[in-house]
């Protein structure tokens, strides 16, 4: 691991102790990963601002007290509080105080208070080929796969460390030769109706994460020019079920205009998806398939304008018989009028989400979601059973007051 004289001086404290600690963390991680050097990054997205315990607050406050200031434009992922609706989060006083102090410390470091896991839909969109340092597994997958910018999966603490020094280890997905697909996933045997349904994409992501892990796949045989929200849902599910940091979708993502481009014409193995494989992945997303549903959770990653519009279309003129939690970005809440959804029974959550902080009643029960990521983390984080379904299934269930899922697509 070669550090420049400048980098070495910073690690020794020439630009203050916050930057010194940050440089040591970046350099030490680079050494662990076998990176030959550091490279410059153009932006950062920090996931470390979510409260998991007091240690993370102490770390951020230490950096802020020591005069830390980000060196590149930096957005913030969700925190553990909904600052727009302060009563939403039920945590005890200590939780709320420490989570709030942590969020303030990251703001003092110069990060933009975006508080979203979908920064790429809040204007943070690095150009293809740009090196960046992003945290939050779904944001990493989107940044690499859909934007074509280059980042590794920067864990909590390394994300802010890279932002403070404007550097990251030169390894992994920063290198073009490491971005080629080595596995071809052929979806062409699946029914056209399934391949063109939103509900398929988190299921495909779940299969991808579980079966492919950190290998890089090129998914072939899907209709071209898939929407950003489908690719977002695919990536979020894949990055929850496995260590997926980059995937290619032939005809939809920037490094895969053709299959040959995605594989860089190198050797690959091919997996042909069957309806049985997809049904098994769908089944894995649910821990309950009958009985009462207590609430609906939407928006992991945070709902976009288009997803809100679709919810509005499905819910028009209807009333929900159970809480429908809609997690979304604060900038979207601030500039749109969501009162019709609230009147129907939706509970709008900004700055955070229902799976990372206590918002749901702690009674347990069954939650329904159209998010592969919520389905994946719900049981462990919330103690709720989970049923996975389409957005239309979720709305129908909320309106009918009982579990309603369309099964035809999956037969």
């Amino acid at each position, binding site marked *: 691991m070669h550090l420049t004289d400048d980098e070495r001086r910073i690690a020794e404290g020439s630009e203050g102790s916050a930057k010194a*600690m940050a440089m*040591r*963390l970046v350099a*030490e*991680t680079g050494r*662990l*990963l076998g990176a030959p050097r550091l490279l410059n990054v153009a932006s950062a997205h920090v*996931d*470390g601002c*979510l409260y*998991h*315990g*007091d*240690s*993370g607050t*102490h*770390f951020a406050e*230490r950096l802020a007290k020591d005069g830390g200031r980000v060196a590149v434009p930096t957005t913030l992922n969700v925190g553990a509080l909904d600052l727009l609706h302060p009563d939403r989060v039920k945590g005890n006083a200590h939780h709320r105080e420490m989570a709030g102090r942590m969020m303030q410390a990251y703001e003092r470091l110069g990060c933009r208070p975006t508080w979203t896991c979908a920064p790429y839909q809040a204007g943070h969109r690095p150009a293809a080929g740009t090196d960046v340092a992003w*945290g*939050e*597994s779904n944001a*990493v997958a989107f940044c690499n796969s859909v934007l074509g910018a280059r980042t*590794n*999966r*920067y*864990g*909590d*603490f*390394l*994300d802010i460390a890279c932002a403070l020094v404007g550097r990251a280890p030169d390894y992994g997905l920063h290198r073009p030769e490491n971005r080629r697909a080595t596995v071809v996933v052929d979806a062409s045997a699946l029914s056209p109706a399934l391949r063109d349904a939103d509900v398929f994409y988190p299921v495909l992501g779940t299969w991808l*994460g579980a079966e492919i*892990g950190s290998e890089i796949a090129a998914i072939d045989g899907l209709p071209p020019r898939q929407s950003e929200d489908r690719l977002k849902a695919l990536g979020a599910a894949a*990055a*929850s*079920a*496995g*260590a997926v940091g980059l995937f290619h979708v032939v005809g939809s993502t920037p490094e895969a205009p053709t299959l040959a481009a995605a594989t860089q014409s190198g050797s690959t193995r091919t997996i042909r998806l069957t309806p049985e494989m997809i049904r098994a992945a769908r089944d894995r997303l649910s*821990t309950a398939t009958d009985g009462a549903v207590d609430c609906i959770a939407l928006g992991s990653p945070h709902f976009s304008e288009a997803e809100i519009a679709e919810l509005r279309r499905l819910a028009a003129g209807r009333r929900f018989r159970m809480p429908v939690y809609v997690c979304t970005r604060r900038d979207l809440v601030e500039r749109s009028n969501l009162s019709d959804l609230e009147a129907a029974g939706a509970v709008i959550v900004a700055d955070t989400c229902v799976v990372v902080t206590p918002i749901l009643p702690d009674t347990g029960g069954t939650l329904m979601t159209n998010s592969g990521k919520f389905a*994946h*983390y719900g*049981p*462990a*984080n919330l103690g709720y059973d989970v049923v996975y379904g389409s957005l239309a299934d979720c709305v129908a269930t909320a309106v009918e007051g009982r579990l309603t899922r369309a099964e035809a697509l999956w037969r």
Partner: protein
Amino acid sequence: MTELTGETLIAGKGAGTILRVDDAISFWGGVDPKTALISDPRHPRHGACLTGRVVAIAELRGSSSSSAVLLELIHAGIAPSAILLRDTDAILALGALVAREMGYGDLAMLKMPSDAFALLTEGRRAHVEGPRVVLD
């Protein structure tokens, strides 16, 4: 007695009985930072406690917040006594690196060659120091 050699990711020492985690695990969403219990009900080791164990982990996955969970375990004094990985995982290592920077202590973390990893059987007592793992 068996002596194995790994690659030091984080220098430190520790001893305890081995807890083997063969199925991929995410510390965030998979380990409760308040109790150190494996909290994912879908994980085969659900309910096992990491505190004081030499935890042998075959594969890590998922969340980039796993480093925060490990830091919290170290800060709260309920961390494993050492972690032995089959593959280098920078996200988990970061939790231990930050603990060292913050003065919370050193958690030994080693990467083990796969033949050595296979010898890390559940319940066997292990002493970890530097790159060496001694099995009783």
